[in-house]
Each structure stands twice: as structure tokens, then as C-alpha cells.
């Protein structure tokens, strides 16, 4: 019996009962899980699923140009909507190409369900064509994964996959489905009949910890909220509750890279991002605070700097949904393992019901100190009227778009990413998509594709570097195919800028292989892809070209030629503490040997 007959037979059977082929189960499970978009690339081992997809309505498949692009696009989709991103790729190279995206999503807690085809079960282990040990390779870069060898397990595993990806600390999961299982017929179970045997994430806070937390907050003289991606992952309500808690307390707020947008950058309590390229006021407040309220952040090394000198005088409250983050890097005084929305709701409830008041006079002094730090103007830079400074380019882009509420920004990784984080201000969650934990160059362009798919009328900008963007440039073709008017705003400094900056500071200005030789002409490249190419060489051209980019309803590659030697400041050099920041190249700064060893 050939596969068409098998599929037709199974389709007939499915009409009368809940019996269907494995391939049909996959599509049915996606529909039952509310999936409307999937990102993928076909190949031999997933053809039955693609065939089932061909015959179904209500699921839009986005054909990417490389499987890494599919996963990043799904990440952009997930992060901008709060829904899981779904990926469908083939066995072997399809699966291995997805690994970078899976690792990226694991590091940044992005819910993804990745479906991979596998060679038929009787060929597993024989080095068959396009075979690889997908579950072995992806075990350390997924929250969980499964190889489904029996049709009877398939629908259960698919629903468990969605449950695990989206609940608790979100993350990517992978289901590997051998081709024979896709053809076999079996009974389909709906999502409501599936409950995982062991997986029970703890999301309700322990109320006695909440009581202690609000007492510590009420007694604080120099408090600080340190918020992270967990607030965003918990859903928009967590961001709203954070604002309410700040309304009640008037405490200052800083955030990690992943948490930008959870608290409005336009509010006076906002200190800017903290960490290696954070603001002077955020890092000094972190160093000097007496009560730190860490909400959904994980004390990443980019945030803490030298751990032994990190916020030495503070009592620390740490809210995280993942118990393994507690005391991992920094010992904390009060852990709260819970979902951020639930915990914040209880904190507000107890703050109000116990009629807590802040230490008014002390808080006033604390704010006076913070205002004094602010006078450093740590994000300032020397502008030029002959050459475009990258900071200026981002400022102008922000000015040209700040009146809109539907602006989504993705980034690649490097200097441009940090400048974007410092200077492009966000007032709402889910509008900032960046590769924080893994630092994946090439993330931004495909992520923009995913965001634009989810928000067809929004303004989606990838703030890019010329080196990063070449890693996944082929996805421009996807943007053209699906009419996605994404704007690729390339800060082209002809260098892997952050590598160059480190070589300047740490390696005696020996710029080993960090110059972007043989760069393509991005305008001609845009032309070849069939999108719009723009270039700006002088500051005077910038505003006009930005407007041109925004006005055109097509994908744009905008080559902004910026100062190749500009470095990203402020900076905490490796191995230094928060109060040992460099504000400009003039600060010099000795890097310790231990610091040089750090990444």
C-alpha cells in the first residue's frame, strides 16, 4: 500500500471515529492546542506531516530558508504574543540546524514546541540517510524531549509537550516522530484527557514568605526592584502588578536586558538597565541598596559583575518560578518560588491589608542620592556632524517612532544590541525581542519575521549589526514571500563591534579577525531579494532615510554607515564591581587577570 492510500484510508477512518494517522494526529493536536501558525521546512522524514498539513485549513505554515530561522521566528512569535511558537522540521540536518534556536529559547525561557521528523523506527541506529540522534543532541537544550516510537503514545506526548513548554518556567520542548509512526493509525486523545505523571510546577507563593517580603520592603531605607524576563513570561498582568506595586511604594526600578518593557521607561522610578552596559544610577543603586527585590531575574553574570562585591549591603528577596535559580549565583535572604503574577498579587494584597508604609524620610534621601547619580548622564556620547554615531542613529529611530504604540524591536547581538537596550525605550512588555542568555548573532532578522507574522500591521524593526545580520540574511526571502514589511536597521561599523571593543580593551588593540572584510553592498542585496535598500552615510541624511524606511510598506534593508571605532559605554569591565564602572575611553580602567579570564 503506498502512502497516499494509507492517508486516505486513515482519513476515512478518522471521519467516523477518533482514529487517524500519526501525521493527522500532529495536525489535529496543533489545532486542539489553538495553534494558528507554524514555522518550518520540509524534508523526507516529515513528508507525511506536510501532506496532512496540505489538506487542512486554519494553520498557516511559514516556510523559512534555514531551520535556525524557523526556531528564531517561532521565538519572536512567542515572545511578542505570549503563545507558544511551533516549529516543524525534518530529521538529521533539519534537527541539528534547530539546535542553536533551541538553546537560545532554553536560556531565555521562551515556550516552543519543535516537531522533528525521524527515520523510520526500524532504521534508527543504523546510520540511515538523514538520521541523527535528535533526542540525544537536544536533551541538554530543551526543557524536555521525546522520541515517539509507538503511535499509541503520540497524542499524549504532543499534549504533554504543550503543557510543559508553556507552564512553570517556560521553555522549548521537542518531539521526534519517526516516519513510520506518522503513517500508522491509532486513537487520538484530546488535550483534556492528558495529564502528565510527574510534572507539577509550583506557582502559588508561600504566604508566610510574602508577609516577610512586604515587611522587609516596608523597613527598607534604600530599596530597589530588580526585575527580569520572568515578569514578561508571567504575562501582561505581572507587568501591570509591578506598576501597581511601584505606585504603592515609590521604589526605584531597574531591569535586566530580558525584562525591558515590564516597567515603563517613561516613568520617573525607572533607572534604566543594570549590568555590564547598564546605567550609572542603576548599577550604583544595585551596589548601595539595603533591600533588593529581585523579581523573575536570575543574577546572570552580565548583571552581577564581580559576585563577591555584588550588592554587598543588601538583604535580598528573590522571586522565581524555578527553584533551581535560588542561591545559584548569589545567596538570598528570602526566596519565593512562585509565578510572578500570583506572587505580586499577594504582595500588593498584603501591603495594603497590613497597611504598610514606606520609610518616607529615608526614601527621600535615597532618591536624592539616585538623582545625584543621574547627573552623571552615563548614556551621553560625543556626537558628530560628519559621521553617524550609532547612538545617534538609535536616538533618531526612537524619536521617529515613539509616538506609535505598535513598535516591536528585535536585535542581533553585540554593541548595537546594547545601544538599543540603553536608548530605545519601552513602555510595554512583549515589544522587545533579543537574545539575552545565549547571545545568538543572527537572532534578530528571523525573530522579526515571527513578530511580523503575529502582528501583521505593526512596525517591526530589527536593530542589527552588519556582522550578525549576515548570519541569517537568507530569511529576507521569507519576509518577501509572506509580505512582511520588516525593517532591518543595520548599524554598519564594518566590525564585529563588541569583539573589536574587547580586543581594544583587553588584547592590546590587536584586532584579530574582527574586521568585516568583503562586506556585501546591502542596497544591491536588498534589490536582489526584491525588497527596499537604503543607505545613509552622513548624519544629515539620517532622518529623511528613516522616514523613507517607515513609510514604505515593504521589507527594508537599511545600511546605516556608522563610526567604526565607537565603543559601548558605560561598561563594567570583566571582574569589576558595579561601582567600578567606566563611562568613557578616558576612564582607562585596569582589567585584572581574573577579569580577563571571564567572557
Amino acid at each position, binding site marked *: 500500500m503506498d502512502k497516499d492510500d494509507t492517508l486516505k484510508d486513515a482519513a476515512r477512518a478518522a471521519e467516523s471515529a477518533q482514529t487517524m494517522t500519526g501525521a493527522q494526529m500532529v495536525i489535529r493536536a496543533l489545532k486542539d492546542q489553538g495553534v494558528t501558525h507554524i514555522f518550518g521546512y520540509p524534508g523526507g522524514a516529515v513528508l507525511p506531516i506536510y501532506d496532512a498539513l496540505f489538506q487542512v485549513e486554519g494553520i498557516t505554515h511559514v516556510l523559512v530558508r534555514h531551520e535556525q530561522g524557523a526556531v528564531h521566528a517561532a521565538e519572536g512569535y512567542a515572545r511578542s504574543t505570549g503563545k507558544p511558537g511551533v516549529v516543524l522540521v525534518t530529521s538529521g540536518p533539519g534537527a541539528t540546524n534547530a539546535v542553536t534556536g533551541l538553546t537560545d529559547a532554553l536560556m531565555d525561557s521562551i515556550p516552543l514546541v519543535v516537531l522533528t521528523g525521524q527515520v523510520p523506527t526500524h532504521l534508527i541506529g543504523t546510520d540511515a540517510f538523514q538520521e541523527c540522534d535528535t533526542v*540525544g543532541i537536544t536533551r541538554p537544550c530543551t526543557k524536555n524531549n521525546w522520541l515517539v516510537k509507538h503511535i499509541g503514545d503520540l497524542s499524549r506526548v504532543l499534549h504533554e509537550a504543550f503543557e510543559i513548554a508553556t507552564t512553570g518556567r517556560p521553555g522549548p520542548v521537542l518531539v521526534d516522530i519517526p516516519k513510520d509512526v506518522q503513517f500508522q493509525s491509532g486513537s487520538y486523545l484530546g488535550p483534556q484527557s492528558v495529564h502528565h505523571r510527574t510534572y507539577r510546577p509550583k506557582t502559588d507563593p508561600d504566604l508566610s514568605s510574602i508577609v516577610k517580603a512586604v515587611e522587609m520592603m516596608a523597613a527598607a531605607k534604600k530599596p530597589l526592584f530588580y526585575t527580569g524576563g520572568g515578569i514578561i513570561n508571567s504575562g501582561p498582568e505581572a507587568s501591570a502588578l509591578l506598576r501597581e506595586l511601584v505606585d504603592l511604594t515609590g521604589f526605584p526600578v531597574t531591569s535586566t536586558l530580558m525584562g525591558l518593557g515590564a516597567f515603563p521607561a517613561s516613568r520617573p522610578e525607572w533607572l534604566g538597565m543594570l549590568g555590564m552596559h547598564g546605567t550609572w544610577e542603576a548599577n550604583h543603586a544595585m551596589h548601595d541598596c539595603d533591600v533588593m527585590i529581585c523579581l523573575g531575574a536570575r543574577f546572570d*553574570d552580565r548583571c552581577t559583575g564581580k559576585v563577591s562585591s555584588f550588592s554587598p549591603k543588601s538583604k535580598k528577596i528573590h522571586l522565581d518560578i524555578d527553584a533551581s535559580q535560588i542561591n545559584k549565583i548569589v545567596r538570598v535572604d528570602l526566596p519565593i518560588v512562585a509565578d510572578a503574577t500570583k506572587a505580586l498579587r499577594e504582595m500588593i494584597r498584603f501591603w495594603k491589608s497590613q497597611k504598610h508604609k514606606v520609610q518616607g524620610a529615608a526614601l527621600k534621601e535615597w532618591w536624592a542620592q539616585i538623582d545625584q547619580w543621574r547627573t552623571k548622564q552615563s548614556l551621553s556620547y560625543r556626537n558628530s556632524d560628519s559621521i553617524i554615531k550609532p547612538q545617534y542613529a538609535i536616538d533618531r529611530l526612537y524619536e521617529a517612532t515613539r509616538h506609535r504604540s505598535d513598535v516591536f524591536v528585535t536585535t542581533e547581538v553585540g554593541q548595537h544590541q546594547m545601544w538599543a537596550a540603553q536608548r530605545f525605550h519601552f513602555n510595554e512588555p512583549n515589544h522587545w525581542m533579543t537574545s539575552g542568555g545565549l547571545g545568538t548573532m543572527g537572532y534578530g532578522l528571523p525573530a522579526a519575521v515571527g513578530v511580523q507574522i503575529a502582528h501583521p500591521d505593526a512596525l517591526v524593526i530589527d536593530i542589527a549589526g552588519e556582522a550578525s545580520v549576515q548570519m541569517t540574511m537568507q530569511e529576507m526571502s521569507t519576509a518577501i514571500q509572506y509580505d512582511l514589511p520588516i525593517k532591518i536597521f543595520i548599524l554598519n561599523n564594518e566590525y564585529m563591534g563588541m569583539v573589536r571593543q574587547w580586543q581594544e580593551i583587553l588584547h592590546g588593540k590587536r584586532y584579530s579577525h574582527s574586521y568585516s572584510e568583503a562586506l556585501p553592498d546591502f542596497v544591491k542585496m536588498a534589490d536582489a531579494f526584491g525588497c527596499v535598500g537604503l543607505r545613509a552615510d552622513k548624519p544629515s541624511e539620517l532622518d529623511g532615510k528613516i522616514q523613507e524606511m517607515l513609510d514604505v510598506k515593504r521589507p527594508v534593508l537599511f545600511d546605516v554607515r556608522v563610526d567604526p571605532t565607537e565603543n559601548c559605554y558605560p561598561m563594567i569591565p570583566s571582574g569589576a564591581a558595579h561601582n567600578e564602572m567606566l563611562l568613557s575611553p578616558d576612564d582607562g580602567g585596569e582589567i585584572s587577570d581574573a577579569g580577563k*579570564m571571564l567572557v
Partner: protein
Amino acid sequence: MHDTKIKQAGENERHTLTVLVDNEAGVLARVVGLFSGRGYNIESLTVAEVDPMARTSRITIVTSGTPEVIEQIESQLRRLVPTHAVTNWTSAKAGIEREMALIKVAGTGEKRVEALRMADAFRARPVDTTHASFVFEITGAPAKIDSFIELMRPLGLVDVSRTGVAAISRGPEAM
């Protein structure tokens, strides 16, 4: 560009942990991969299905690290999706730890007699005997097996096979 461990604070301690997991494909690789991926030590590892009806396996791991690292290991193990329960027999709960070993000693004359005498004192049982060798079976706490092996070394020790530690709680309750 490499990483530098930030964790080390206290002294290294040896801990025995038991992880009860779903007996599903790849679960042992998941647990072992967690240890190798995060740079934790495994000194011994014992694993077998313990309840075929419930399809659960029990993995007992002897590991070492600072108290901070041990705490991380426990919470990382709890985070694995197929994990039912994690118990630390060294810090949390009174348990009994036992290990079995098969120890081969070759020799003749006085050394052979001495080996047999020592084995008797350790309640190790010969399970294979030739004119030139013994295989002893010994059960006990790992330290007891360590000292027996040291005693056998000058008497013609040629091979050692150890099972790793199995652990269970004292009293009427399960883990």
C-alpha cells in the same frame, strides 16, 4: 572565552542522593547529562527499575561538592520533568547505605591464607575458588569496602567490581 566558577565557598562534602524517576527512554542520560553538563561529580551511580507497575526507576548517586553545589544539584534534579522525588541521605534524612563488591585476589602460600583470614574478618564470602585465586563477595558501607580493598592490595589484588551505593530510609516510611 571560558567560564569561571563562581560557586565555591565551603568545603567539599560527599553526599548520597536518590532520584525516583519515570522509567522512560533516555531518563538515565538526562540525569547523567545534567551532571556532566553542569560540571558536577559522580562518584558512583546505581540504577534499576524498582516498581514495574508504576514504571519507576531508582537512581542512587554519590556525589561531592560544596554545600552550595549540592543544593544546586538537588534542585536541578527536581527540575527534570520525569523526576518524582529527590532525597539527600547525607543531609536530610537518616538512611542506610550499602554497596556490594566482587574482589579477585590471586596468590599462593602464606598470602593466600592471609587473604582468606582477612575476608573472614570482613564477612566477605569466597564465591569462586581456584588453587591460585579467590573471588570474594563483600557487602557494606563504601568505607568498609575501601578498607577491605586496601588490605587485599599487598595480598595479590587483581580485579575489583563495585555496584555503587544503594540507599534506603530507616523506619517504616518510603523515601
